[in-house]
C-alpha cells in the first residue's frame, strides 16, 4: 500500500512536468494547428541556460524568471522570423521547420555545453514533513510550481484583455482582425508563452534527470501523450492529461512488478514506461481522437 501511494505521488510529480509541456504544445496548437516538435529541445536549451546562470553565481529563483523571459523572447523571435514567412505554407513544410529547429537546438546545446551530463541541484530545501516517506521535497516543489504556473496562466487567459484577445485570435483569426486585433503578434505571443512554460518545465525536471542534450526527448513524448489524452485543443485537458499520464505510467509499472512478484511472469515493468506512453498515444488516437476533454472539430464544407 505504502509503495502504491509512493508511486502515485511520484507519478503526480512527473505528471506536473508532462502537464507543462503538454500545455506548451497546446498553446501553439490551438492558434496554428501545428504540433511543435521542437518544444522539448527548446525546454532543454532553457534548462542549460539556467545551469549557465547558476554557474555565473545567480540563485535558481533569480535564474528561472530571467531564463523564462529570455526563452519567451526566443519563442517570439522564432515565430516572427522563421515561421512568419510560412503562414500560408503547407503543413509539411512547417513540420520540416520544426524538425530543423529540434536539430538546431539539440546541436547548439551540445556545441556550447558539451554532451557530458551536468547536474542542477534541486532548488527546493530538504526538510522532513508528514508523508516525507512517500514523496521528496523536489517532487512536491515541482507540483507546486506547476500548479502556480497553471493558475497564473488560467487567470491571464480568463481575466485579462490581452488573454481574451489571444483566445479570440486563436479561435477565429478573421473575426479577430475585424476587431482590430493584431493576430500575427498574438501568434508570436503564444509562441513566447509556450517557450517560457517549457523553460519552467525544463529547469524543474533537470534536477530530477540530469542535464544533457537528450534529456527532453522522452519527456516530450510523455507531453504528447498528455496533450492527446486530455485533448490537444483544450489547455485544461492537456494539464489533466499530463497528470493522468504521469500517474498511469507509474501505476502500470507498479502493477507489472506486483504481477511478476506473485506469478513470476514478467509482463511489464519500469523499463517499459516509455512504451506505456506510446501505447497511450496510439490508444487515444484510435478510440477517441479528440481526447478526453477536447472538442470534436467539425468543418462545414
Amino acid at each position, binding site marked *: 500500500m505504502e509503495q502504491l501511494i509512493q508511486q502515485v505521488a511520484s507519478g503526480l510529480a512527473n505528471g506536473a512536468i508532462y502537464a507543462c509541456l503538454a500545455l506548451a504544445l497546446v498553446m501553439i496548437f490551438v492558434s496554428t494547428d501545428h504540433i511543435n516538435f521542437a518544444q522539448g529541445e527548446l525546454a532543454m536549451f532553457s534548462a542549460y541556460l539556467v545551469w549557465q546562470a547558476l554557474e555565473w553565481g545567480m540563485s535558481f529563483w533569480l535564474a528561472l524568471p530571467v531564463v523564462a523571459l529570455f526563452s519567451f523572447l526566443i519563442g517570439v523571435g522564432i515565430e516572427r522570423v522563421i515561421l512568419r514567412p510560412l503562414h500560408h505554407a503547407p503543413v509539411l513544410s512547417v513540420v520540416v521547420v520544426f524538425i530543423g529547429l529540434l536539430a538546431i537546438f539539440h546541436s547548439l546545446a551540445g556545441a556550447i555545453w558539451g554532451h557530458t551530463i551536468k547536474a542542477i541541484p534541486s532548488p527546493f530545501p530538504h526538510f522532513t514533513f508528514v508523508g516525507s516517506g512517500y514523496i521528496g521535497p523536489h517532487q512536491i516543489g515541482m507540483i507546486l510550481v506547476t500548479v502556480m504556473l497553471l493558475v497564473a496562466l488560467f487567470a491571464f487567459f480568463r481575466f485579462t484583455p490581452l488573454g481574451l484577445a489571444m483566445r479570440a485570435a486563436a479561435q*477565429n483569426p478573421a473575426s479577430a482582425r475585424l476587431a482590430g486585433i493584431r493576430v500575427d503578434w498574438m501568434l508570436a505571443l503564444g509562441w513566447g508563452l509556450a517557450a517560457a512554460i517549457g523553460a519552467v518545465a525544463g529547469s524543474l525536471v533537470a534536477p530530477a534527470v540530469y542535464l544533457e542534450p537528450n534529456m527532453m526527448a522522452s519527456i516530450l513524448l510523455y507531453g504528447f501523450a498528455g496533450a492527446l489524452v486530455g485533448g490537444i485543443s483544450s489547455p485544461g485537458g492537456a494539464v489533466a492529461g499530463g497528470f493522468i499520464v504521469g500517474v498511469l505510467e507509474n501505476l502500470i509499472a507498479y502493477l507489472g512488478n506486483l504481477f511478476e512478484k506473485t506469478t513470476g511472469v514478467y509482463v511489464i515493468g519500469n523499463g517499459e514506461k516509455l512504451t506505456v506512453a506510446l501505447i497511450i498515444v496510439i490508444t487515444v488516437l484510435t478510440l477517441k481522437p479528440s481526447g478526453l476533454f477536447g472538442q470534436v472539430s467539425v468543418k462545414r464544407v
Partner: protein
Amino acid sequence: MAALLEAHGLKAFYGQTQALHDVSFSLQPGGITTLLGANGAGKTTTLRCICGMVRTEGSIKLDGQPIAGKATEDIIRLGVGHVPEGRGTFTNLSVGENLRVAAYTRKDKVAAERDLGMVFEYFPILKARVHQQAGTLSGGEQQMLAISRALMLSPRLMLLDEPSFGLAPLIVQEIFRIMRRINSEAKVSMLLVEQNAALALELADHAYVLETGRVVMSGKAADVKNNEAIRKSYLGY
C-alpha cells in the same frame, strides 16, 4: 460635403481570378448607402477590399486618407466596423467576451463601457444572454451580436454584409429598424450589402448596382426603387 469614403477604380483579385474590374463609389458622412446586385456581382468583395482582406488595386480613401494596402487591423482601428458575411461569431467565447474583444483596441474604457450599455439597449436579448456561449445563439441573435461587435469599435463607418441572410422576416425587420436607429442616434454611416434589394432600398439613401464586378448604375435610393427597368433587369423584382 467631403466624402467619408471614396473608392476609385477598384480592382480585386482572388489568386488569378479578377472579381472586381472597375468599381468607384463614394459615401457621404451620416448616410446609408447600399450595394446591390446578383450573386457574384462583387458586393462582398467590395467590402473586403475596403478592409484590406483581398488583393486590391485602385485607391480607397477614408476621410481623405488613403487606406488601400493597409493591414485589416489598421483599417479597423481607423474606425471601420465590418459586420462580415457569416457573422464571424467567436463561438467558444461568451456573448460578453465577444463584445469585450471588440473593444480591445479602445483606449477610452469609460466610453466603451457606455457603448456596452447602448448595445444592450438596442439588443436587450444580448444582455439576457451575456454569459451564454455565443455559438449557442440563434442566427438572428448572432447577427445582432455581429452588429454589436462592430458597434463596440465605436466606428465612423459600418460595413454590413447581408445582415438579412438566412433570417426570418420578423427578425430582419427588427434588425433593420435598429440599424436605422444606430445610423441616426449613434451617427454611424453605413455601407450595406444586400440581396434583398427592396429591403435595402427602404433603408438606404443612396444605392449602387453592381454587375460582374462593375458599377452599372448609381443614384438616390428612391430613384433606383422607382426605376422599373433597373429593378426588373438587375434587382429581380
